[in-house]
């Protein structure tokens, strides 16, 4: 096993901050690769929080909270007009 692992095979947590752009560019951007990314992410979340014997509410609530945040971000443009003060 090489002592110096090339940047491509490192996991995200092991990548140093300066190497981040090159790491991102080296990822697999083919349709197959992107599909694989989504599949891996889904299966990681699924097998850790949902596909267990005694699952808790956090399995769904995290997904719902993420959806809430995401939809808030999408509708921020309209919400900007309902601000109470103009200058912050």
């Amino acid at each position, binding site marked *: 096993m090489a002592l110096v692992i090339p940047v491509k095979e490192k996991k995200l947590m092991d990548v140093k901050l300066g190497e981040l752009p090159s790491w991102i560019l080296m990822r697999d951007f083919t349709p197959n690769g992107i599909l694989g990314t989504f599949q891996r992410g889904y299966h990681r979340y699924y097998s850790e*929080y949902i596909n*267990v014997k005694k699952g808790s509410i*956090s*399995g769904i609530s995290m997904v719902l909270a993420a959806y809430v945040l995401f939809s808030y971000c999408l509708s921020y443009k309209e919400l900007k007009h309902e601000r109470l003060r103009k200058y912050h």
Partner: protein
Amino acid sequence: MLSRVALAATAAPSLKNAALLGPGVLQATRIFHTGQPSLAPLPPLPEYGGKVRLGLIPEEFFQFLYPKTGITGPYVLGTGLILYALSKEIYVITPETFSTISIVGLLVYVIKKYGASIGEFADKLNEQKIAQLEEVKQASIKQFQDAIDLEKAQQALVQKRHYLFDVQRNNIAMALEVTYRERLHRVYKEVKNRLDYHISVQDMMRRKEQEHMVNWVEKQVVRSISAQQEKETIAKCIADLKLLAKKAQVQPVL
């Protein structure tokens, strides 16, 4: 059942990989089911999911910040973020905010109160399903075990076959003996029949000859008695008779 699916899943890629070797490579290098199937038996499901604090933030985040900021770090970070969002009006307070707060409060209350019991109910349903499947599995295992035992018993019977063959051999020997004796008896009867025939033919011949001879002798004698001899014999007989009569007369008087 699942192991078969797993076997199919592992066999397919291994066969595919082997087929990628060019057609010139010996097909003897194809990989068949030689090793242990790695997916069977499936590992059991984990008991509990990943730990999550406040129902929203995974424990890993707290552990990630613990070395640098201690225990209160993530909470302070959260509070700071919320205050920043409120003060800079990144989060705008609208009438919806109050309905949100009440709904979220209600949800949290309901979940805290009834979460455990609902979990137990779901667990019971799961257990029932698993128990049913387990029953089916046990039933089929028992069936196979019974079939195996039956097979073993029948195989054991093979060792006792020689009794059957001995009995059959004895029966056949007896039947052979019986037919042999029957035929012997028939032969004897037939031979006796033929010999009796010859004997009766001989007897008949002798009888016929005797009768014929006797008849012939009688005829000769009758022929030989000429007429004159007949008269003489008759006269003699009459004289004898007269003598006898006289004797007989004399006798009863005495």
